[in-house]
């Protein structure tokens, strides 16, 4: 399953990447599992697992880590927002 993964703000800087096309292995069907799989890829990826109050959006709507994944989804990981 191919998805697009985005990172913002401090998380983008810590990972050194803003966007990535990812081919997700079968069996990873939720956002939380995707995060764990990405975080297991060695340095600097563990930062994704240890990020405090990690927020997730799927297709530009904020969701919980139990949200389902679908092929073609745009998944964004980011710290709590601080605009306004």
């Amino acid at each position, binding site marked *: 399953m191919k998805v697009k993964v985005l990172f913002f703000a401090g998380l983008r800087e810590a990972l050194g990447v803003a966007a990535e096309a990812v081919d997700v292995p079968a069996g990873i069907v939720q956002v939380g599992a995707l995060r764990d799989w990405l975080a297991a890829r060695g340095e600097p990826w563990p930062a994704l697992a240890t990020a405090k*109050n990690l927020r997730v*959006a799927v297709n*530009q709507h904020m969701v919980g880590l139990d949200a389902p994944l679908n092929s073609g989804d745009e998944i964004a990981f*980011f*710290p*709590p*927002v*601080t*605009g*306004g």
Partner: protein
Amino acid sequence: MQDGFSVSVQEADFDAGAEIARLVAGREDIGATASFIGYVRADKVHAAAAEKVVAMTLEHYPGMTEQALTDIVEAAQGRWPLVAVRVIHRVGRLEPGAQIVFVAVAAAHRGEAFAACEFIMDYLKTRAPFWKKEETPAGGHWVEARESDDQATARWAGR
């Protein structure tokens, strides 16, 4: 969104007076507008020079930001009878004193104008994908989210 309701994400500055005037132009059913402007602060007044904010860079999630702001405005419309709403959020590098965000709500009565304006700001602070990076003489750092902002959003859930 419905006529009279709009959101913008932009680098350009805005003219709050002109925006409010546009909301009420030609209407005779608006009794009240409540408006909010947020500004870049140089931060703690008594901070050492090295801690003073020289600039603030606003990053956002293009595409999601407009959608998130639209969702927030529509949630406000679902709660109160509103005539018009305008939301503007700037992105890019801004110096102390600069305007960051603008929310104006027009309604028949003041109660709903105030409530909706504050509701939109509270949700924007915790649900709209913007991030601030502060630049000081000592370096740059990402602003931490404040727990008080989550509490401000949460208090609307019970109402």
